[in-house]
């Protein structure tokens, strides 16, 4: 008999923690599953045991996570850390793996709260050791107090670029340059959305204060940067770029890039949940109703994996999903659900006013529109170039799934998490189609690495996975 959960929450970030805590308060038996051993997700990584002696380095927003974790701990909800979710079925079977052992459990309700990932934007040299994402730099800072020792160049577009720059300044890290790739035209386009953004909480003020901190520290910030290139043999040696009409070069062993974040949809896509293309956020996201319910009965999504609204909004969206779960499980009635949801809805209405401004200002389109040279790797795992993908598109490949069959792009260990959208974009452009028309990669379980030996030892596997048995 497979282990059964009443309410399984996947992900221990703000959405998952808030959802599990609130569900537990209504009497629902909630369990949070997370691949990290500790609570907080990536945004509040290591919140319960920070390796940093100076808590000011990460800033006030990070400390919001403390309240979420306390509420979760006090709620009686369970936490299964260090647990990979490698499969979820439409029958709400969940494949788990921890300590080299796998098992299949079932749940009455599932909430997917797996957050976001950084948008992968290929550019020449991006696979060289020494090039990594700004989010990776922040995770090293939060979880291990590990920081660049010989300076770093930060490049790209989006709020996180300036946040990590400010955090590095506070931590005494030498910043060789901040290369802001936001086009000047975006400031003009975003301006009409600024008044609404200013009513959404202090996001704009905080952003400006990060920039002041960076400039005060004497860091060179270059705007309207284009054509970023990482140069090196076995590892990164320099960064070159265009700005103010000419080419520049900075010698550096470390480059951190950021091009915004997109919903982490590999799990929701693998289940077969309906997704829609969000043209403003330039990403796929699951189609939901106002409670986070998806097209699959009993499976909901909340937080940034359902659309990029930020960490604070994620907690409130998690609460909405928890109220709906409590209603579906008979703990509260519809009127109580709606009543309790009112403050969360009010928060979200106000909070979301900042998004149009951020989405227009930090649109990744100009970075994505840069004409990728044919020899730039698009699929990092299988080492497939932009030229190969274009060629496959010219042969008639209709979308990323067919390109995968032709070239293996998206067939490597990351299962298209890095190349999927780029392959789709190249295919769409070659065929004169939209992203919505070419569609997205459909990953298949297991979506996390699990050995054949581990899989073979699951006794319940055959019973819990009728689809596989029939195949």
């Amino acid at each position, binding site marked *: 008999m497979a282990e059964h959960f009443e309410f399984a929450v996947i992900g221990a970030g703000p959405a998952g923690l808030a959802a599990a805590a609130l569900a537990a308060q209504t009497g629902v038996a909630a369990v949070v599953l997370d*691949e*990290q*051993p500790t609570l907080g997700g*990536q945004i509040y990584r*290591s919140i319960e*045991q920070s*390796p*940093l*002696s100076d808590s000011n380095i990460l800033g006030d927003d990070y400390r919001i996570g403390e309240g979420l974790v306390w509420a979760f701990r006090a709620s009686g909800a369970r936490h299964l850390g260090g647990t990979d979710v490698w499969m979820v079925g439409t029958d709400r079977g969940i494949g788990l793996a921890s300590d080299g052992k796998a098992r299949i459990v079932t749940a009455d309700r599932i909430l997917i709260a797996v957050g976001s*990932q*950084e948008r*992968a934007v290929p550019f020449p040299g991006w*696979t060289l*050791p*020494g*090039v*990594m*994402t700004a*989010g*990776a730099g922040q*995770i*090293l800072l939060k*979880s*291990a*107090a*590990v*920081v*660049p*020792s*010989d300076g770093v160049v930060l490049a790209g577009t989006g709020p996180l670029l300036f946040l990590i720059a400010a955090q590095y300044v506070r*931590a005494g890290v030498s910043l060789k340059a901040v290369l802001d790739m936001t086009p000047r035209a975006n400031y003009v386009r975003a301006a009409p959305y600024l008044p609404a953004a200013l009513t959404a909480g202090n996001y704009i003020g905080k952003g400006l204060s990060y920039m002041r901190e960076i400039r005060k520290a004497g860091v060179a910030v270059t705007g309207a940067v284009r054509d970023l290139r990482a140069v090196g043999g*076995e*590892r990164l040696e320099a960064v070159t770029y265009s700005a103010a009409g000419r080419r520049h070069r900075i010698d550096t*062993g*470390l480059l951190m890039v950021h091009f915004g974040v997109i919903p*982490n949809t*590999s799990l929701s896509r693998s289940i077969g949940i309906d997704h829609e293309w969000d043209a403003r956020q330039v990403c796929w996201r699951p189609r939901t109703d106002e409670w986070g319910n998806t097209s699959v009965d009993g499976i909901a999504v909340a937080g940034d994996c359902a659309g990029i609204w930020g960490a604070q909004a994620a907690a409130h969206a998690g609460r909405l999903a928890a109220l709906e779960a409590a209603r579906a499980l008979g703990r509260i009635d519809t009127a109580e659900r709606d009543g309790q949801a009112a403050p969360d809805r009010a928060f979200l209405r106000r909070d979301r006013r900042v998004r149009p401004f951020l989405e227009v200002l930090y649109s990744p389109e100009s970075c994505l529109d840069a004409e990728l040279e044919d020899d730039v790797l698009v699929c*990092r*795992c*299988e*080492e497939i170039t932009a030229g190969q993908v274009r060629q496959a598109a010219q042969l008639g490949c209709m979308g990323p799934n067919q390109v995968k069959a032709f070239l293996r792009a998206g067939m*490597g*260990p*990351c299962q298209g*998490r*890095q190349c999927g959208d780029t392959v789709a974009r190249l295919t769409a452009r070659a065929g004169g189609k939209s992203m919505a028309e070419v569609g997205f990669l459909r990953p298949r379980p297991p979506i*996390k*690495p699990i*050995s054949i030996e581990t899989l073979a030892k699951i006794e319940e596997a055959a019973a819990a996975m009728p689809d596989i048995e029939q195949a």
Partner: protein
Amino acid sequence: MFKRLREPDSEWVTIEIDGESRRVPKDETVAAAVLADRIGHCRTTPVSGAPRAPYCLMGVCFECLMEIDGIPNRQACMVPVAEGMVIRRQNGAGSVVGLQVGTEKDG
């Protein structure tokens, strides 16, 4: 390339990275320990043999695959270090129980 802001204390463990003994904080991931150790790259690719290093550190890029305690293809950014852990760079596709899986593609 990277340094630790922390000083060694009792909460450190001893691990082995490519045959060399290292003291590292016990709450670090293998990827953080490897980056702080300046080893440059953590694997070479099965296709071209190009060197790669951790890229996302949150489990989505799969660039940090290493052999950890004899098991290949483990995500170094997802595995916490432990006393006595043996970590090796993974060259090419890695091996399965003595069987070498295609390290280079033909053509």
